[in-house]
């Protein structure tokens, strides 16, 4: 984990340097928090906010949260939980980690773009394309050796995601089209392409006899399924996909910090003019970055397909929210590998803990489900306005100055180095 930590610290420093533009007292305060405390406080505040809403609806937030917590399976970590309770907890924790796996990767897809100064809203579309290709490869080529088949499916999904992300990259590089707009459009294109593929009579619609009236893909063949290493392989135990995701988080950290591409991406992201003066080609960098982002999201989908979904319903494609969660995860994780991993775990836990089957019936299940959305929304809101968060935790001290960039710049240029 030391690499992730290093990366996290470097990021804290970078944001510290950027924050050097704001008044130094605030900067020092932020640095003191080392870039880790703020996201934690953000999450805590979001939970408190959610709790207040629960309270307002006449329910007890503590019972609700403890029920959600038990639903996440994190109580498995407590040694005193035993017996059937422990077995349930194990199952829930497996679910949490299964959810966290794609969240981590889609989070990285968003975070990598952020580091290059791009806002990749297209995680959804890149994930969708990856899923279509993964399910097609996984359900075809039966008889292929398992390792080869799995690798093929994952690589093909990565390539599909990369191609989809690359479209936005090419458009940005050649015409300057804003990637926010193009990725949103590409999301819809991907979703409807997926629906077309698997709808009744679609080119990839299931060939199974009992599925003629169900819009679904073929099922991944046994040889292409990711091995389950914890829990039951028939009851969605935890598959090895999570290790691939964690490994890719390390790849992310290495890419950012140790490679020429990461260096160029960050330079272009921070200051395209200076990057150009150094002989960097911003357009080419954007293209490569978007392709890598797409690959991360594509792999996320392949791990879902090969790990536990095994087939793809048109409904799944249309209902998936992973792109939005990925943005929240990246923001909360401050665009670092380590931070994104922790944020993915948090959101994975939240999604599992609030899913219907885990909720104790004394609590309104609809409320609890919406709680996830509320907490997600609050986190995005608070992360994008971290100045306000700081103000809250500073006990009302005045920090409004941070909003005024220009005087601060003047101050930082000379003051900071004085």
């Amino acid at each position, binding site marked *: 984990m030391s690499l992730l930590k290093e990366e996290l610290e470097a990021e804290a420093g970078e944001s510290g*340097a950027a924050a050097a533009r704001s008044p130094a007292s605030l900067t020092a305060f932020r640095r003191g928090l080392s870039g880790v405390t703020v996201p934690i406080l953000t999450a805590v505040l979001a939970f408190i906010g959610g709790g207040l809403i629960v309270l307002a609806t006449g329910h007890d937030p503590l019972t609700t949260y403890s029920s959600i917590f038990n639903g996440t399976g994190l109580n498995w970590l407590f040694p005193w939980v035993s017996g059937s309770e422990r077995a349930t907890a194990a199952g829930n924790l497996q679910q949490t980690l299964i959810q966290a796996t794609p969240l981590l990767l889609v989070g990285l897809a968003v975070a990598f773009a952020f580091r290059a100064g791009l806002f990749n809203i297209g995680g959804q579309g890149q994930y969708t394309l990856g899923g279509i290709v993964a399910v097609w490869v996984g359900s075809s080529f039966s008889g292929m050796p398992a390792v080869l088949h799995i690798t093929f499916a994952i690589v093909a999904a990565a390539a599909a995601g990369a191609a989809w992300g690359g479209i936005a990259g090419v458009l940005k590089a050649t015409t300057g089209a804003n990637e926010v707009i193009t990725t949103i459009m590409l999301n819809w294109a991907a979703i409807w392409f997926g629906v077309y593929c698997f709808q009744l009579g679609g080119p990839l619609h299931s060939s199974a006899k009992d599925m003629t009236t169900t819009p679904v893909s073929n099922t991944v063949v046994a040889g292409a399924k990711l091995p389950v290493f914890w829990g039951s392989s028939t009851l969605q135990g935890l598959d090895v996909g999570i290790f691939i995701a964690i490994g890719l988080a390390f790849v992310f950290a290495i890419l950012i910090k140790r490679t020429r591409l990461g260096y160029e991406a960050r330079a272009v992201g921070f200051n395209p003019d*200076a990057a150009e003066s150094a002989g960097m080609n911003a357009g080419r960098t954007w293209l490569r970055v978007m392709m890598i982002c797409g690959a991360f999201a594509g792999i996320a989908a392949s791990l879902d397909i090969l790990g536990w979904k095994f087939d793809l319903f048109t409904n799944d494609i249309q209902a998936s929210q992973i792109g939005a969660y990925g943005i929240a995860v990246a923001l909360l994780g401050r665009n670092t590998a380590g931070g994104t991993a922790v944020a993915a775990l948090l959101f994975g836990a939240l999604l599992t803990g609030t899913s219907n089957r885990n909720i104790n019936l004394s609590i309104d299940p609809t409320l609890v489900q919406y709680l996830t959305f509320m907490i997600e929304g609050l986190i995005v809101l608070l992360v994008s306005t971290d100045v306000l968060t700081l103000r809250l935790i500073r006990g009302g001290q005045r920090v409004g100055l941070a909003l005024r960039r220009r005087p601060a710049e003047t101050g930082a240029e000379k003051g900071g180095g004085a």
Partner: protein
Amino acid sequence: MQQSAPPVLELKGVTKKFGSVVANDRVDFDLVSGEVHALLGENGAGKSTLMSVLYGLYSPDSGEILVDGSPVQIDSPSAAIKLGIGMVHQHFMLIDVMTVAENIVLGQEPGRGGVLDMKAARARVRELSDRYGLAVEPDARIENITVGAQQRVEILKALYRNARILVLDEPTAVLTAQEARGLTGVLNRLKADGTAIVFISHKLGEVLEVADRITVLRRGKKVETVPRRGATERSLARLVVGRDVLLAVEKTPGKPDRPLLEVSDLHVRDDRGLEQVSGVSFTVRGGEIVALAGVDGNGQQELVDAIAGLRAPESGSVTVDGREIGGGGVRAATRAGVAHIAQDRQQRGLVLPFTLAENLALREYRAPRFSAWGWLRLGAIKERARTLLKEYDVRGGGPETYAAALSGGNQQKVCVAREIASDPKLLIAHQPTRGLDVGAIEFVHSRLIAERDRGRAVLLVSLEYEEVKALADRILVIYEGKIVGEFSPDASEEELGIAMTGGSRQTEEVAGAG
């Protein structure tokens, strides 16, 4: 002098630290009404930090502030404004699309019950501007008035808020010579009216012109407060830098060698498609500094961009040591041996949120020493940064420090170090000392001469006569995208001035002499 009058403002033992960097170390400062008190020092000496403390932008770690003899807490600009302190920042804080009057009254609009009384606002603005000779047109939009006028608006803004203490942060940095003279007149009128003025600057000449007293800061500490009477540029320079400064660096005549840069019949268009460089031809040889002198905006930027590979020329050729690089981009130029100290270090020269090690690698990160197979050799990059920071006396940080944390002068040293370290054949220095203090100017100048003496070709683009004079072996004057004359370094300012403004073209004769 009103030295005996009680000070309207006193700073006592103000200390401000940023992490381990002490920006202000027990600084004392006082101000009496009706004086201009200059705060002089190198970039990064702590001038702006001290004033930011006064204006409530930073809170001091220790020390106290007294206004009219009583201690005050200033924790925000609005607290400062309430105490009668006004500040004009180097970068103006005006809203471009609003009018002069609207900007001035913003936040303290006259009117009742939420209804804005613009008539009253305009009247008040007129009254103030007449009283102090701050000519502005209340109904003009900020985006349509000159920088000098914008500065007057900023001063009016402070006066409108009843400032008795006015802090001007490097007010002349953005002004033309004529506008600067106008500012001096305004300051005199404000003084006569009893306003106390803090004048932050690193320019010796103007401080001697406007200040009554001068406080010199060096590395965060107050060195001395001296009256203007008896102070000279040389004595101030010594206080500022802490040693004797060569106001003009010594140099021997250049020894021009073979041509390293040959530009022939070059035409370059700007972003709007207008031809800014129209058929320029010249040569720079190894071992000489050729200065390109001219009024800003006569095609210098486009010419430099074309040679540095940042802009493809329309036609013509640029060869460096025999290699054609026109249109090949920055990488082709870099490979041919072009290094470029960019005019704007913060915009083009540096990536501010990068560390110094990362910034120092920008020119050469692709070289096998610093990366291979797409991997960065972080150890080598850091090691080289360490060497360069030492060699170029960059203060305020090590390889892992963020560039944003350095003062302007030290940032410029980083740019200069990087470009020279790339071992170029041709070094383009575009306004290499803009905004630098005397010590740093001396350093950069001597570096450029040292590069020349090592046989490199140096192309200096400068707007400053003194700099051109101090460095050039030959002077080319550019006017409206054409080279209109060549002069020897002993040409007078007048001669150059006439050529730079499109006066009589005695090119051939003078060129022959030079």
